[in-house]
């Protein structure tokens, strides 16, 4: 038995063996005493100036004197988990909506498949983009659209946005 306890303390017992021995420890005061003795020996070997007393009795007595305080358990971990779960659900919902709207909004032509994701973003308005109107003016010089629309096509360059 002493050999087994020693091996258990070294963490070298198999799980089922350790379980059987711990069950025995709980039931048999003799074995419990041996367990304590072995720990005392271990402590003595590591820290010789603090050993020599069986602290279990005093510890038990002091534990009895401790007042029992009833307080609600702190919910932090649960709340975090709750929040994380709902956030995950929201993200999933958003992704679903985005996916659905992409399915419905833009028809998935073969050309679109080749186009990058910039297509899905809302484009900037021209006049807020500096330098772009030069291209627009140059384009309109030659675009067939200008021939039909005449000076009205300048609206893209003059628009006050």
């Amino acid at each position, binding site marked *: 038995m002493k050999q087994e306890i020693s091996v258990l303390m070294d963490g070298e017992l198999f799980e089922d063996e350790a379980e059987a021995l711990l069950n025995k420890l709980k039931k048999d005061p003799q074995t419990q005493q041996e367990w304590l003795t072995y720990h005392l020996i271990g402590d003595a070997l590591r820290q010789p100036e603090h050993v020599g007393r069986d602290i279990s009795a005093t510890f038990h007595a002091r534990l009895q004197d401790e007042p029992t305080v009833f307080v609600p358990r702190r919910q932090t971990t649960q709340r975090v988990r709750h929040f994380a779960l709902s956030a995950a659900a929201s993200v999933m919902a958003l992704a679903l909506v985005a996916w659905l709207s992409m399915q419905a909004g833009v028809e998935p032509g073969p*050309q679109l498949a080749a*186009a*990058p994701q910039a297509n899905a973003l809302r484009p*900037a308005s021209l006049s807020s983009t500096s330098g772009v109107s*030069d291209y627009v003016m140059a384009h309109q010089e*030659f675009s067939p659209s200008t021939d039909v629309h005449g000076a009205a096509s*300048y*609206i893209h360059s003059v628009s*006050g946005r």
Partner: protein
Amino acid sequence: MPQSLRLLSCLLSLFCWQSAAAESLYRDESDWLKTMAFAAHQTDYSGTFVYQDGVGGHVEVSRITHVSDANGEHERLEGLNGARREIISSNNQVWLFLGDRKVKIERRHGERSFPALLPEQISSLKENYTIQQAEEDRVAGFHVHAVVFQPRDNLRYTHKMWAHSESGLLLKAVVLDERARIIEQYAFTHLTLGSNIDRTWIAKGIAAPTVPKRNEVTPTAKSGVQSLSADWKVDALPNGFKKIMEVTRPMRDRAQPVTHLVFSDGLAGISVFIEDVAGREGMNPGLSSQGALQVYGRISADKLITVVGEVPARTVIQVAESVRYAGQ
């Protein structure tokens, strides 16, 4: 808006058998486009029109004047709301007025062949669009004929145009996407036709002092537009777009000239600009748009490639992504 949308989609679906019964003034529907282009250049008119960017819902009211005389063509477009924004063009010269500033945009390059819509463009138009004459109506008090240009693929927009029945002048235009949503539209609310139009602005606008701009380019005929060997290729051009021009041109604030390719399907244009990215770092690549006009820029190696066109975003992106250097 939803009502007009419903009405429009309703009308669009009705065109098929309506047009069959409609009495056409023109033997060929594409003649409308030639007539409108001719009228846009030859008619003297002045009026107010309302422009709406269908995507942003932004509305703009502008006054437009066009005069064609012995000295050529003169156009003026002024925004009536907000700070002064005005464009005056006189033949090959274009000035932009912003507040107190007057900026000479640039000289128009080359001699525009007039009528500008060439016969081959008209024929390609019919390959790319179904052209149908629609209802007759009234716009700004004038009798108009409506024509619908329905594309055969989703890489271009649907155009519906209302032309003045007598002169052919375009009085109302709507651009729709493939789901019949309005991308942009404009319509005259007031229009005066004929020679009795104020012309004092022509001389005044030109005489106003120009604010010198950094590195302003006033190209001469020699340094202006030069033809160029076909060094740049666009692989994923939508069907029916043909190259109508390829030049190198100076542009404002650039040390190096810019390569400019223009493609046309008869109705919409796509421009491809290729330039050195050095010195253009301020440019933000990506998509920007106003109404039917989309601009998409991307950087490829040391080049900045910018595509502009009256086509959907997917088309300018597709074109820009497929530009490659095929020269030495």
